[in-house]
Structure formats: structure tokens, C-alpha cells
């Protein structure tokens, strides 16, 4: 059995850039693979990752991201984000990383609970039909805290 003292990981995903979405997905999947429970709470822009129409069109951020090594002015030019995203997706494909829709299916089948934030859903005027079928429900932040129901639970804001 695992030696880890972490028993449950709760992720709050508040951003929709590819690097943040994949960080949450890879950590949630990695937790399940180690026998650790995992749940993701999608809030604010993170909701884009579970909107049927938007989830496969997420981008990497080229502005305000010094590690991209692109001058901010250049990063803001039309088409730069799309280009950088295309390049990154190609690299991810080489490593057999699934696209967002398939990754969500893997997470759900692996027992990761997927929750939408009620406040953000209301704020963006979204409806349950706009969100993926695999969603486990729409919760308030209070409800989500109550998912931290055992010792060894960790909560992470991304």
C-alpha cells in the first residue's frame, strides 16, 4: 500500500489556460493512480474547462508569462496565442497526453468527482446543459469544504 499520508486531494481550478487546466488534471489523475481520492471544483474561468462548447478550445497564455520567453508586446499580437497553443499541443501529444475532453472522461471514469461552482455558474449565466455530462453537480464553496470529510485531506487552489 502507499506510504503517503495524503488521503484526499481537493482541487479548486479557477483558470482556463492550458497549463493550469492540465496541472489540475494531471495531479487529480495522479492521485487516483496512487489510491488517493480526488475532486475538482471548477470556478470562475476554470468553468471553461467543463463547458462543452469551449473545453477543446483552451489556450496557453502568451502575455504576462515570462517563462514563455516571448516579449509581452509580441505575445499580444493576433495569432500568437493560437500558434503557441498549437506548438504546445503537439508536444503534449508526443507524450501521449489526452486532449481536454478525453482527459475529463478518464478522470470521471477513474472516480474523480467534478463539481461546478454555483456562484460562477450564475455569474456567467450558464445552465447545466452547457456543462459536460460527466459533471457530478453544482456546489457552493461551503458544500465543497464539506467534501474535506476525512483526515489527510489537502485543498489546492490553481
Amino acid at each position, binding site marked *: *500500500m*502507499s506510504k503517503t499520508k495524503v488521503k484526499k486531494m481537493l482541487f479548486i481550478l479557477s483558470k482556463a489556460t492550458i497549463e493550469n487546466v492540465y496541472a489540475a488534471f494531471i495531479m487529480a489523475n495522479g492521485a*487516483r*493512480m496512487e489510491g488517493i481520492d480526488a475532486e475538482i471544483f471548477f470556478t470562475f474561468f476554470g468553468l471553461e474547462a467543463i463547458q462543452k462548447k469551449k473545453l477543446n478550445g483552451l489556450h496557453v497564455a502568451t502575455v504576462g508569462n515570462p517563462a514563455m520567453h516571448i516579449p509581452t508586446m509580441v505575445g499580444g499580437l493576433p495569432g500568437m496565442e493560437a500558434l503557441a497553443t498549437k506548438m504546445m499541443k503537439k508536444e503534449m501529444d508526443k507524450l*501521449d497526453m489526452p486532449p481536454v475532453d*478525453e482527459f475529463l472522461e478518464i478522470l470521471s*471514469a*477513474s472516480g474523480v468527482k467534478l463539481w461546478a461552482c454555483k456562484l460562477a455558474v450564475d455569474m456567467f449565466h450558464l445552465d447545466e446543459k452547457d456543462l459536460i455530462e460527466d459533471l457530478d453537480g453544482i456546489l457552493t464553496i461551503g458544500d465543497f469544504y464539506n467534501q474535506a470529510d476525512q483526515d489527510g485531506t489537502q485543498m489546492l487552489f490553481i
Partner: protein
Amino acid sequence: METLIAGKNVIVNEEGYLLDFSQWNREVGEKIAKDEGITMTPRHWEVIEWLQEQVKADKALSIRGIKKSGVLDIKEFYALFPGGPLKISTKIAGVPKPKSCI
């Protein structure tokens, strides 16, 4: 290190994975499974044999590969080997623990 599993001397690493697949047999696999709290069924063995074939064919094991396998889906994989399916099933199969993060 050398250890005795199901009456057979085998070499394992510090996590209990067999280092030499030729030392593996079903009794060894069955004992490793028992220590992981799993009672093997014919369905378990089907999956184990498939995993061993993949490793023999030099194919990397990943959860995405399970999804695409056509042999079983991810839900069944977690149901058969609860508590970390890929690392537990590979241990039972006598093959190396996959290094992939996905």
C-alpha cells in the same frame, strides 16, 4: 533483494516489484495480489496476461492506454485493482512499475 514468495526465491526491488520476469509464475502473482488485498479471478488473470503482453511488446503502460485497449475500461480497471490500479496490477504481473505521470 532476494525474498521468498509462494515458496519461490525471487529478486524484488524495494517496492516489491519483481526484477526478473522469468521468476514469475501464477502462484507468485497470486501471493502478491493477496498481500495487496486482492483475490484473483479469471477476469483478473485476463487483464494481467494482457499487461504482460504489452510489456513484452515494449509498449508503455498508461491509464490512457487502458482506455484505448478494448480489453477493459478504466472503471473496471479501478474495480479490479482498487487503490492504484496500474501500480498494483503491474506488481502482480511481475513487470516494472510504469514511470508515466498519466
